[in-house]
Every structure is written in structure tokens, then in C-alpha cells.
């Protein structure tokens, strides 16, 4: 199973990296917009909208790997004081809840994406770019979150509680 786990985590790490790099593109686009509008009185119709088209995928695609990094904030007052065994149970429970959450939303968002594709959805702004593709980001991100949550649950199950306790204290 380990190669599969590594594949999921590795793929999510790549998505996380792409998301992290892509957001930098927003800066020159918005700067260009400011200069074009202020200095040349010629605002673009695309800069702000293109930026938001990067923004959504940025945080959606980075979500699954942030789970691996334990970067989604949580209340740790109970787990800090719990026994290693209890902590392991709580952790696995948590990852399973996340897996269910991701599975449900992935399942619900898929038909919306397919429909947007079939209708060739565009944003209907002055620029009017196709936006159906962004709706596929959502089920894809939830699929990857689902996979990562299962991997994390399996890893937590595999790690003996004592070792987990050591890991949790850097």
C-alpha cells in the first residue's frame, strides 16, 4: 500500500507547489491593470477576472496537501491532554470525517461541472472567458482531499500510539 500512499501524497504536494507558484502571477496582472487604467486611461477587461480565476484553484488545490502538513487549524486543548491511544482514535475519526465530507462534496459538485461543460459556460463579463473548467477544479480537489484523508487515516492506524505521541511533540 505504501507506494499508493506515496503517490497520493506526492501528487498533492505537486498540486500544492503549483498553487503556491501560480498565485504570484496575480501581482503583475493587477499592476498592469493599475498602470493601464491610471496612466493610459485604458483599463483592461481581463486583469481582475483573470486574477480571481487563479485565486480559486490556488486555495482549492492546496487544501489536500495542507491536511498532510497539519496546516488546517484545530482546537487542541483536549488532544494535548489525551492519552496516546485516545489521541490516535480521535485522529483516525477526524480523518474519516474529512473523507466523508470530501466524498459528499465531490459527488455533489461533479454534475454541476459536467453541466457547465455541456453548456460551454462563460463568465458573461466584458471579457467573457470560458469558466466551465473552474467547476472541474472543485470535484478534483475534493477527490484529492478524500484520498489524502484516507492515506492519513491509514498512516495514523499504522503508527503505534507511542510513536505518534513522540511525533506530535517536535
Amino acid at each position, binding site marked *: 500500500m505504501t507506494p499508493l500512499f506515496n503517490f497520493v501524497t506526492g501528487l498533492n504536494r505537486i498540486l500544492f507547489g503549483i498553487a503556491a507558484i501560480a498565485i504570484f502571477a496575480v501581482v503583475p496582472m493587477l499592476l498592469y491593470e493599475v498602470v493601464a*487604467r491610471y496612466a493610459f*486611461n*485604458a*483599463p483592461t*477587461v481581463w486583469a*481582475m*477576472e483573470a486574477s480571481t480565476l487563479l485565486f480559486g484553484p490556488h486555495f482549492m488545490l492546496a487544501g489536500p496537501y495542507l491536511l498532510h502538513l497539519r496546516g488546517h487549524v484545530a482546537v487542541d486543548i483536549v488532544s494535548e491532554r489525551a492519552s496516546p491511544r485516545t489521541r490516535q482514535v480521535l485522529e483516525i475519526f477526524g480523518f474519516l470525517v474529512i473523507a466523508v465530507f470530501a466524498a459528499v462534496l465531490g459527488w455533489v459538485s461533479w454534475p*454541476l461541472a459536467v*453541466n*457547465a461543460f455541456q*453548456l*460551454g*459556460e*462563460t*463568465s*458573461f*463579463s*466584458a*471579457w*467573457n472567458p470560458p*469558466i466551465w473548467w473552474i467547476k472541474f477544479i472543485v470535484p478534483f480537489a475534493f477527490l484529492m482531499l478524500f484520498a489524502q484523508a484516507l492515506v492519513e487515516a491509514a498512516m495514523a492506524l499504522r503508527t503505534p500510539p507511542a510513536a505518534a505521541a513522540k511525533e506530535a511533540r517536535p
Partner: protein
Amino acid sequence: QEAVEWRMQALWDGGTTPFEFEKAFVARVAELTDGKFDIKLFSAGQLVPAAQAFDAVRSGAFQMMKTFDGYEAGKIPSFAFTSTIPFGFPNPDQYEAWFYELGGLDMAREAYAKAGLFYIAPTVYGEEPMHSTVKIESIADMAGKKGRFVGLASAVMGDLGVAVTPMATADVYSGLEKGLIDFADRGDLTANFEAGLGEVAKFIILPGVHQPTTATSYVANTAAYDALPASFKAALAVAAREISGSLRQRIIVQDTIVLDKYREQGVEIIQLDPADIAEARAKAVASWNKATKGDALATRIVESQTAFMQSLGLL
């Protein structure tokens, strides 16, 4: 008759005049059905963002919405013309006549049927104004100015030489105040007054040619609608037609009152020359045709509307 309970999300924020008329709508439906048809009303954005209500009703999350068809024009081109036509019908009665007398209602229903939705009826009313920080006295004056417009209006105004600047509704006030834009469309006269546009833009340009008349619509989930007894369906149609007239008349009165308030703030009201508008309308036809994206139904709608405009002497 068994009782039916629906949820409906309106297009308006709570406390606004149009929202009061949505309350009147659900009350009227209840009255016409002896209280058996109970529609629970939610204000804009309470359940989903207004522009996302379409998919929520399609999936059956709630059974009904009051919507602006133009939100989904990026999916279904016909909706650009069932919601508002830039440089289109100058008089709401003409637009409503197209719906009820010239097959507009059926074409709107055809457009929605593909999505599994049932178009009940429109609520038709007049213009939305343009607010400007610079004096604009003709369509030609608009060329080269930075204007905030959305949807089909952004394409049409762009074709007329306006430097169209996309901007969220919430940013219009500060955009005008800071000079990011020279003139803007936002909401109706009253809503814009309450949003303080009179403080930052000292000119109002009427008629709002980018949105001379407006149709919002009552739309239901088809399966939910089909399950209704005939008398409940009739109650929806009757109440919708009543609200269309009564809201429009309220707005006519409100506009006169609020225009006086604008004048008290020192805002100058500029009326565009009808001949100037007619000339621009003739040019706008090309933009309309482009916006059909070659879609058969959208093309039929535009042809039917332009034929009516020709017989009215507008084109």
C-alpha cells in the same frame, strides 16, 4: 387539498422595497390557496449567492427563486434578452407586452426548460440610472470614459467606445468617489440613493440606456412545479402578474420622490435626447446579434424583439 411548503430565495436584500413586494407575493399565493401553499421566503444570499440560485433550484435545494436571468447568460445566451436589453424597449409596458402578447413567455419557458426549470412569469419594471462624476450629455460623450457595466451592457457599452471597467457592486461607491471610474450602473434610483451615490456622483443620466427596462423572474424547479395542483399553479401566475404591475407602479412613484432628494443633494439630472438614443439603438442591434452566440432560441428571441421594436417605430 394537501398543504405544500416551498422555500424561495428572493433577488433582494431584506428591508428593501422590492423585497417587501416578494413578501406580498408569498402572502398573496397563500391567500389564493386558503393558506395551503406556504412559501418560505429568504432574502438574497441567505441560502446561496444570488447569482448561484439557478443551480440550487435546478438541484431542488429550494423549489423557487426570484432571479435575474442575465446571471446565467454565460450558460444560456437567451437569458441576456429575457432580463434586460441594452438600448432595448424604453417602456416597461412594451417589454411586458412582448412577454405576454408576443410569445416572450413561451420562449423564456423554452430557455429554462432545458435546465429542468419552469419559468413562471416576469416582474417587469423600468430603468436603472447611470451615475456620473463628469457631465455626460450625449451617447458620444461616453466614448473614452471609464464606465462600470455588467453582462450584455458591458459588451454594448464597450462597442460604443466606453472603457468598460469590471467592478463588484459593493465597490461602485468608492470607485466613483476615488475616480477609478467616471460613471457607473449599479441598482435602481432608490437603492443607489440609499447606497450614497448622490454623495459622490453629481450627475445622473436618464434614461439608463444600458438598462432601459428590466425583467426579473419567478422560476421554479420543474419537478416541484409539476407536482402542484392546478389551482396552486394558477395562484403563482396570478400573484406574479399582480406583483409585476404593483412593483412597477411603486417604483414610478418612488423615483419622483427620490429624484427630488438627489436634487437636494445638488445632483444634476441629465436627460439624453431620444433621437440620440434611437441612433445608438440601431447600432446596438449588431451587439445583440453577436451575444446570441448563434444559439437558435436566442436568435429567435432577438428577431421577435427587434420585429416588435420596428413596429413600435423604435428601430
